């Protein structure tokens, strides 16, 4: 098992003939993702270099292929429209890679698409190693195994995964939830799935400053999965208040979103917080050893 995505999930790409879309389609295809086609309005009937059919609409793609998952590579002004179209066609999981989506667009989409899981926007996607990749992650650094990973950023996720894989700690599913203030799937929603996943034996939470997703994750862990080994990391501990660092969501404002509050919440939940990414694998291994 794994969460959200496995080797049978039927995936389409919205914006499949664009520069980003076609590049990452090829990488997902080579990784072994069960890609069944893509959508670019006006290019219906064409085939991609991998032989995948292109459709004019998401409805046509879903009717012809039975797709349940979509990966969205469209420019920011059209991202909300692409998500609505996916919802209308009955897609159940949409990964929105697009960075720079207006926050009101995300608010409206999230409020109006109950029943469809949205990952992102402004995220690297998700991967169930050895099974499927939906997004822009570098597949070769991942290794199939039992550690679930959730993160608000891209390259930091890769850094941590690289360390885990080299230490022999493979992963069940890794999810980059996105760096925006409003996102479709929070840490808590991922944890709820990991809790019921038999493959996942330990979890790494890669948080950062801003918002309260980490505090809520800590509370959920304490209440619902106190036995599961969890290790956390908080990026941006040395950031000044009032300034966004890269991610629109990574901002300390007033008393909110401080690293101290997040670290305290995890420690109260019995979750060790690594001072640096390189400490994560040992902390995970220790906790797994204690448990077995």
């Amino acid at each position, binding site marked *: 098992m794994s969460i959200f995505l496995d080797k049978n999930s039927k995936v389409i790409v919205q914006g499949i003939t664009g520069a980003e879309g076609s590049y990452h389609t090829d990488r997902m295809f080579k990784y072994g993702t069960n890609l069944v086609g893509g959508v670019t309005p006006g290019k219906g009937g064409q085939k991609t270099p991998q032989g995948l059919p292109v459709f004019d609409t998401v409805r046509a793609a879903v009717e012809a292929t039975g797709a349940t998952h979509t990966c969205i590579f469209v420019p920011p002004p059209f991202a909300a429209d692409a998500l609505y179209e996916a919802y209308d066609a009955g897609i159940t999981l949409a990964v929105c890679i697009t960075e720079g989506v207006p926050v009101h667009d995300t608010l409206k989409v999230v409020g109006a698409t109950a029943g469809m899981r949205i990952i992102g926007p402004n995220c690297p996607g998700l991967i169930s190693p050895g099974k499927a990749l939906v997004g822009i992650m570098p597949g070769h650094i991942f290794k199939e195994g039992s550690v679930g990973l959730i993160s608000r950023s891209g390259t930091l996720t890769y850094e941590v995964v690289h360390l885990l894989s080299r230490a022999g700690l493979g992963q069940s599913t890794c999810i980059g939830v996105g760096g925006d203030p409003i996102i479709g799937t929070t840490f808590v929603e991922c944890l709820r799935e990991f809790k019921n996943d038999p493959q996942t034996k330990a979890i790494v939470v890669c948080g950062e400053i801003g918002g309260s997703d980490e505090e809520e994750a800590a509370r959920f862990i304490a209440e619902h999965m106190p036995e599961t080994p969890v290790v956390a990391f908080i990026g*941006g501990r*040395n950031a000044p208040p009032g300034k966004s*660092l*890269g991610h629109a969501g990574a901002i300390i404002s007033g008393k909110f979103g401080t690293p101290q509050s997040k670290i305290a919440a995890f420690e109260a939940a019995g979750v060790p917080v690594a001072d*640096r990414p390189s400490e994560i694998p040992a902390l995970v291994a220790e906790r797994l050893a204690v448990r077995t």
Partner: protein
Amino acid sequence: MNLMEYQGKELFKRSGIAVPRGHHATTPQAVADFLEQTAEEWVVKAQVLMGGRGKAGKIKMAAGAAQGRSVAEEIMATPMPPNRQNPAGEPIKSLLVEEKLAIAKEAYCAIAIDRAARKPVIVVSRFGGMDIEEVAEHHPESIAKFYVDTTIGYSPFMGRVLAFDAQLDHGYRREFPAILASLYDVFFRYGAKLVEINPLALTAEGRVVASDAKVELDDDALFRNPEFNEWRMALPLDEDELLAARAGVGIRNFRRFPGKVGTMANGAGLAMATMDAVANAGGQVADFLDVGGGANAERVRNCYELVVNNTGAKVFFVNIFGGITRGDEVARGIVQAMEQTASRKIPLVIRLTGTNEEEGRRILAQAGMTPVETMDEGAREAVRLSEA
């Protein structure tokens, strides 16, 4: 993008919120010309983004042309005094001359985006004219909130519920639901992250007037309202954002700090972790810089120049996790960038991983740079070199 009071009030007016009669002036002469036409006493308010104008003596009364001029000159003579968030203070480039309201009561209302609820939240308190954080600390029971379902939007019952819950003075009640409707219109129409009226004044004559205006627009939504690009010109420049834009990186991707270790990483999360790694190694960073995807020679050169020419960096620590990109290509890009640049040379410590990373490190070492294998090792080496 945060708007000035006069800009926020312009948006309020368009959506039907009552604001004091007023005149925006950019010189003391313009203030004098305006006050010449009337005998009443008016309020002259500095237009700045920083808070604390009253305490800093940047809001004053004036009647007539002569006093108007001298008060305006006095306000504009010195910048807003610095505070922790704005260590440089803020120059005063314009003034808002407004009618003096006979204020009987002051309340607070705002609409913001609640991250955890993933909904807009309307916040109301019967205590206005002070920081809402202060109200939350001293009178938490006075704050009423309503989370708006975006598929419904605003409906007047929300205003009624809030007015009762917040125990607003009776004088507000008739107009309040309509004022919130207008405020929601501003929030929604311009894609704002925050709209705030503090204080919402109830005058002795029973008018309800927005005495101040705070509006934060979403930078990602500015493309929908091109007029705001002109409005931006009137705003104080954030120098870091300007430098970032000139170097061709996103405006949120660069921040300067007082330390000696220049940093650059690909991806915001890794860039933050790089700052933390330098701090863990006992050093202080000179900047936060997310180079974005694709570290080609031109981009690396621009970023190198951005850091050496604008910060106190004595060493440049480059942390590239080459997930998809090839390590040897990144290395050639860095070497080429250093050959091309005319800026002063500082030592480079480069952490590089990815496909062909050994080849990449060999290329860097040959060019006299310090390639390292891990982030922690790179941070230690960079801190050591910055102190040498």
